[in-house]
């Protein structure tokens, strides 16, 4: 396994998290707002074709943070429009991110069934 590839993923992914932490500490943004901002920023940067360069460079360092989720929404929308025409405007984004979203929903449902709520410390 190429260690340089891992290092790039670490540095880029870490930097995206560092920006989020600075936003939490220095502004009044709540975690939910930061996640929304990251996804929308990802759609914007993905739509402009900028984010793909970051993915080519850092791999999972760019796709794992929530900006990568936004970029995937944009990419899926673009591909679906090319393949299916106008219907792709509505179908592309959800289709592209369906595995992650459906996986998170089903697994969270199972967790809700089988895991006991811990007393909050």
């Amino acid at each position, binding site marked *: 396994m190429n260690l340089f590839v891992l290092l790039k993923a670490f540095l880029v992914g870490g930097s995206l998290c560092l920006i989020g932490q600075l936003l939490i500490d220095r502004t009044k943004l709540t975690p939910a707002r930061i996640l*929304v901002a990251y996804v929308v920023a990802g759609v914007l940067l993905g739509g402009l074709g900028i984010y793909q360069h970051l993915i080519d460079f850092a791999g999972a360092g760019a796709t794992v943070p929530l900006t990568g*989720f936004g970029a995937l929404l944009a990419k899926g929308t673009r591909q679906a429009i090319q393949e299916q025409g106008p219907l792709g405007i509505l179908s592309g984004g959800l289709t592209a991110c369906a595995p992650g979203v459906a996986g*998170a929903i089903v697994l969270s449902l199972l*967790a*809700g069934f089988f895991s006991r709520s*811990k007393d909050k410390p």
Partner: protein
Amino acid sequence: MGLTPKDYQQMSQEASPPSRTVKNGAMAFLIGGSICTLGQIVLELLKSMGMEQDQASALVSLSLVLLSVLLTSFGLYDRVARIAGAGTLVPITGFANAMSSAAIEFRSEGLVLGLGAKMFSIAGPVLVYGISAGVLYGLIYYFIR
């Protein structure tokens, strides 16, 4: 307890915002970076098995989501999140943690309006604005490409 002025100065320095910001930032960077590196390791393994980039990337997200929900179920994710801050929030694991921890916590309020609804208290806005931004982008792309 006896505090010399020197002790006090040191304590106040440790508690002052700049050093806290630096420490929080460092932890977010290290732990967030580590989660992404873990994702990259899985990605490299899948690609070495001959999987295509896009498919491998989706599977990486899915495996991190699975890991996050498991750790959340055992109460471990929140423990790391207290130290890591945005380091555990920004990666896709944070999204999965927000959903599963709400599912576990609000199950007692019922399966529909508790578990089913509260699961989306943070994930919902992310999906609403993410999908809407995607559709807006799609409209622009369709008409000006």
